């Protein structure tokens, strides 16, 4: 019996690798949900009793605004915190978990702070930037929760290094095979060798739009070449066709890998700059309110 229990414990321990989302049994999710519920209840209880519109200028608005601003500054501190490595109770995982859930609760806090009053002004700019930061953060959560698996599923047992090596090897083959060809034949090989872009721009990586890929064009042009007289050249062309096909396959795999990586990393290219913009807009929002009080 004792031994069986031991086995059980062992298995549980193996399973208990938990991500930041499930940290401590969703502790921060619960705290954030509770904060939201309390704030919503207070808002709707107080809003009908307030003489004025329950916007940022009411006492409820000031309270929610102070809470939201404090929260934003704390959330932004994750950038500093993650560079300091500690363990234990306030581990980075706990911190990230709190960052995610308290960050989401900001949707409720800040929206109620606005009292649903929006306009073309610095105040709504700060709100919009905050929502952009949160939305990009949500993308990030989705990316971290699903994409690593998809990255793995995509590449199978092939590592990224192996993909690049395969491409290099195929290019070498292509080069050597093309040497005996005449000018047209060589140009087809050169098209694939010299103009194939593996990654490309941000949007190309994200959308995976490689319709004008040079290797693909090379394959089309290869098929259109007239059959050469020399058997040696004909043989080379046939082999080149196979190599180009293989290269296309490896390119596809690598590019899919890049696309998933782009999703995995891309949200941060919005999240971080938008956070800086938000901190500036938030400062402008607060200072301007007190300037023109």
């Amino acid at each position, binding site marked *: 019996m004792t031994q069986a229990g031991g086995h059980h414990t062992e298995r549980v321990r193996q399973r208990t690798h938990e991500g930041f989302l499930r940290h401590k049994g969703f502790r921060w999710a619960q705290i954030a949900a509770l904060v939201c519920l309390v704030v919503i209840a207070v808002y709707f209880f107080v809003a009908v*009793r307030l*003489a*004025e*519109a*329950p916007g940022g*200028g*009411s*006492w409820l608005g*000031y309270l929610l605004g102070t809470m939201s601003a404090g929260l934003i500054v704390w959330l932004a501190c994750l950038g500093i915190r993650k560079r300091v490595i500690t363990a234990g109770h306030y581990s980075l995982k706990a911190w990230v978990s709190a960052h995610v859930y308290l960050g989401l609760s900001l949707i409720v806090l800040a929206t109620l702070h606005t009292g649903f*009053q929006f*306009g*073309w*002004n*610095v105040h709504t*700019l700060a709100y919009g930037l905050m929502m952009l930061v949160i939305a990009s953060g949500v993308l990030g959560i989705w990316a971290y929760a699903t994409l690593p698996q998809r990255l793995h599923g995509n590449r199978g047992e092939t590592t*990224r290094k192996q993909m*690049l090596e395969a*491409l*290099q090897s195929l290019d070498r083959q292509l*080069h*050597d095979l*093309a*040497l*005996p060809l*005449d000018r047209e034949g*060589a140009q087809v*090989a*050169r098209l694939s*060798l010299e103009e194939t872009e*593996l*990654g*490309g*721009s*941000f949007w190309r*990586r994200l959308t995976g739009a490689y319709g004008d890929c040079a290797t693909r064009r090379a394959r089309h042009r290869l098929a259109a070449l007239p059959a050469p007289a020399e058997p040696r050249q004909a043989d080379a062309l046939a082999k080149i066709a196979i190599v180009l096909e293989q290269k296309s396959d490896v390119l596809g795999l*690598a590019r899919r*890998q*890049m696309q998933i990586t*782009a999703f995995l*990393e*891309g949200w*941060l*290219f919005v999240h*971080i*700059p*938008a*956070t*800086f*913009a938000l901190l*500036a*807009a938030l*400062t*402008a929002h607060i*200072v*301007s*309110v*007190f*300037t*023109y*009080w």
Partner: protein
Amino acid sequence: MAQEFHLKLITRRAEGGDPIVRDRQLEGAEATIGRASGNDIVLADLTIDPRHARMRFSGPGRVSIESVSDLPFEVDGKSVQSVELHVASRPVVTFGAYRLAFAPGYGDAVGVTVTREADEQHASPGIFSLQAKVFGRRNMAWVLGAGIFLLCLLVPMILVLFTANPRIRPDEQWSSGPLSRAHAFMEKDCKSCHANAFVAVRDEACLTCHTADAAKAPKALADARRLGSPFEPRLISEHAPHAELIKAAPLPDGMGGKINVLVQRALNHPTDRCASCHIEHNPAKGGSASAPLGDKPKLVVVQTCESCHSELKMRLPNTGLIDTPDWSKHPAFRPLVMMQAGPAPKFVRAALDTAPQEHNGLIFPHRLHLDPMGGVAREAIALGRPAGYGAPLECASCHRRDATGGGFLPIEMERDCGDCHSLAFARVGGELRNLPHGDVSKAIATLAGGALPAPGGSDRIGPGAFAASGATAYRATFSRGGACYDCHTISWSGDTVRLAPTKLADRYLPRGGFNHAVPEHGGPGRSKTGGFACADCHRAQASDKSEDVLIPDLTKCGTCHGRTTAQIAAADDADCTTCHSFHAPGAATPKPGQPPLRTLRWPEAMRSRAEAWTPG
């Protein structure tokens, strides 16, 4: 040694280490260069044609190279089709990735070192990461953050703090919402209200245009016009002296309200400012998205009437005001009762239930005038319909409504009494001559003066008689049977007549608004069942002397106000605002949105003011 080429082929290893070097000798004075394996010099580069160029000795120490494929090659960075090389100058020729370096060899031989230039670049696994490709995240963050800080805070702040009248107004982006239509003309000039940075909008800013202070009001109106207001500002009085108002106002009900007020006061955002109740930049509570703002600033009631007018003495020990915590505890009316008539009359506030007596100096029995069977009634019937009578007197025979219908014009003797109480004292050339009313000395002068007509027939019309002139007429006029005697209290000191000063009350209850135009208040129009006529409130028919104060007490109001329609058809609310308003407690609170903004446009406002001032 014969003319021949000594080739030295150097191949670099991709993985580093010593390069592979091979030597070869080409027989003959000519050599072919190309990618194809049949060439003398084979260059494995796809940019090179299978048969690209031919190289031969063109003289002692000279080598010429010419393209046989139309494709060029490079000499000293220039693309050429053919070239004549002086070997002694150690020229270098480039074909694609290959470099051919020429040098004199033994005898006539020429050494050619063939090297493959830089190998192709291999991608590193870092290429999979976005960071290898996309603009710097950190740079973007700093640029965006700094840009917004600059444009949204620093630039507007500098302009606000250090310029008086900037050409651009970037502080407009700080506006949390549009202004009401009445104030929209100031929309772009934040500082017209937000005069000092970090100081909440003060009353002085509002009073620039809105002060009712008689000394400042004309300038306020002029200022409003100068600032571009399309509307005449409403001139506003304080409810009470500001210092007393602060002391009288308790903290609002509820913990939230109390904290709010205390925090705001602590943060130099007092809650007793005009802007504490009249909110701008804010949609009305429950306002729709399409019409979020009204014509005027949104009114937020911070304190109710009852909250200050309860236990007021505790906060304001010197107050003479009686607490009115609710309608049922509204104190009895305490009208201003005249204690001494004259040009500077004296009043006391006396509760109606003490049956106060008014001293207006006039002898006037209402009962006598209203008795339908009495002599007055008979005379009124005799005067006939064309003269405006023809029936016993009623209230409206003497009391004439003002232009609004809500009040009455002051009694004027000649107009309101003169049809019966003639002031005529003589007939000159068929025309009656009237004594001037309102000034005894003028009346005496008229009776005694040169204008005095010759004694003649009696022109007695109505009360008052005279049949003499000069001293006799003078004495007769002010004696029993004389024109003045019936209504004025007259005393003699020797030959000098004295009339008690008279003054009729303008308004008994100047701290409350009562509208006589309401049909249920005896006004014109159709009244609901239970509505009142004059006599229901004013017991004039039973009053024998003018000392009687004929206004009804509050219980009369309570017949309808505060009742339900089940109790009386004419039931109405009993809200403080029905009779009082905050800024002018003597008038009812205007209905929301009254007066409409369009009536406040300058031409309309001036016209209506002119009409209000026109007598009659």
